[in-house]
Structure formats: structure tokens, C-alpha cells
């Protein structure tokens, strides 16, 4: 059995945003552990939530799923922090503009908005949280296979 579709999509996004000019290889599909200085400027990729609707009443049924995928651009800098985060988000949006191939299927991410946050620190810390909607279909008994 393949990985859950969520993991496959997340992995495809990680691959697509790895190697960008500003964040380079500092891409983490994990939001649990704090990023250290060595991880910055970096990207965190995760799924935040998902809505699903059955498309038929018999079992197994087809599900239309819309997952919210989040890419957090994280950086610390004493100057031009906003500029750095804007540049990072530009690079991410461009990288994710083309459809991803997941399990042999084309998956399009639709940019749905951004939240910004920053904090005073020994070096000011800032985060730009980009959200993307990702629609795909699976059977309810096979969440690892996109249809």
C-alpha cells in the first residue's frame, strides 16, 4: 500500500520547493520541532486541514477532497525582514504555480491567501504563512490512491 495521499502531496510540494534561491535545501515537512539558526531562512510544509465530500452513496464511494496545504516562510534578520519573506514567498508561489504530479495524477495547488507574523527577538523573527487549496479525489477505502 502506498503512503496516504496527504503524505504523497506533501512530499511532492517539498520536492518542488527544495532548492529555491533563498531557502535552498532548508525545507521541513514538519511543524513540531523548532527551527534553529541553521535551519533559516527556511520553509515548513504541512497540511493544515481538509474538507471531504462523498460523491456517491454506495460503498466504496468516491470522495472529493480539498486539503489546505501550508508553506511557512521563516526567517530572522535585523534588517529587511519583510523583504526577505516577500522574496521567499515569491519563489514558493512560482515553484508551486505548475501542477504537481502525485501518484501519476496531476494536482493543481490554488493559492488561497497569506498571513504574516513577526516578533521581537535577539534577531527579529518573521513568518509568512502561505495557504494553498489542493483538490483531489480518492475512494473512501483507498486514501492512498488518487483517482
Amino acid at each position, binding site marked *: 500500500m502506498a503512503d496516504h495521499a496527504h503524505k504523497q502531496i506533501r512530499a511532492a510540494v517539498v520536492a518542488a520547493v527544495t532548492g529555491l534561491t533563498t531557502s535552498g535545501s532548508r525545507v521541513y515537512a514538519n511543524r513540531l520541532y*523548532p*527551527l534553529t539558526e541553521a535551519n533559516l531562512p527556511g520553509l515548513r510544509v504541512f497540511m493544515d486541514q481538509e474538507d471531504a465530500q462523498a460523491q456517491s452513496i454506495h460503498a466504496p464511494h468516491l470522495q472529493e477532497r480539498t486539503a489546505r496545504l501550508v508553506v511557512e516562510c521563516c526567517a530572522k534578520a*535585523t534588517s529587511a525582514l519583510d523583504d526577505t519573506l516577500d522574496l521567499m514567498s515569491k519563489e514558493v508561489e512560482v515553484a508551486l504555480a505548475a501542477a504537481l504530479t502525485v501518484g501519476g495524477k496531476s494536482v493543481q495547488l490554488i493559492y488561497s491567501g497569506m498571513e504574516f*507574523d513577526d516578533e*521581537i527577538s*535577539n*534577531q527579529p523573527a518573521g513568518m509568512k504563512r502561505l495557504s494553498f487549496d489542493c483538490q483531489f479525489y480518492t475512494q473512501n477505502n483507498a486514501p492512498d490512491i488518487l483517482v
Partner: protein
Amino acid sequence: MDSQTDRLAMLQALGDLWHHGGIDFYGVFEMPYELMLGMDGYRPTLTVEAAKSDEIALSDTITRQNDNAIYTVRAREPDGTGMVRLVLEQQ
């Protein structure tokens, strides 16, 4: 703190000597770990007398005498008892 004399005594006993605009003063420096938006961070602060803090504007730089470390003052947090915690940024 009961009086300015008590506050000064406490700052001299526990603090370091700092420099701002040609004037030396005492302050208690702390830099606790803080998780900042999921990133490792430290929050340097300097506790000083409120009267002294009035002379220091936001964005001013202050220097610690013993190692010449320079910090920029980014926020002021009065505690209501005659002391103010200055929130600093490392330079």
C-alpha cells in the same frame, strides 16, 4: 522597590554597567530562551530604573561595558514599581 535608593542598590548588586549617550548606568540583563513562531529565539532584556529608561528612546543603541556588546532598544515594558524592562535586539 521602596525607593530609588533601594532600586539603585539592587541594580548595582545584580546588574552590569551599561553605556548610553555618554552616560553610564546599571541594568540587569537577561536573555531567556523563547520559541518565536516555531523558531529558536532569545529575548534579551535589560531591567533599569524607570527614570533612566525615560532617557532612552526606542531605536537607541546601548552598550554593555564589560564586552562592548551593542543592543538596540525595541520596546519598553514598565512594571509599575519604578522599574522598566527594555526589550533589546542584538547588533
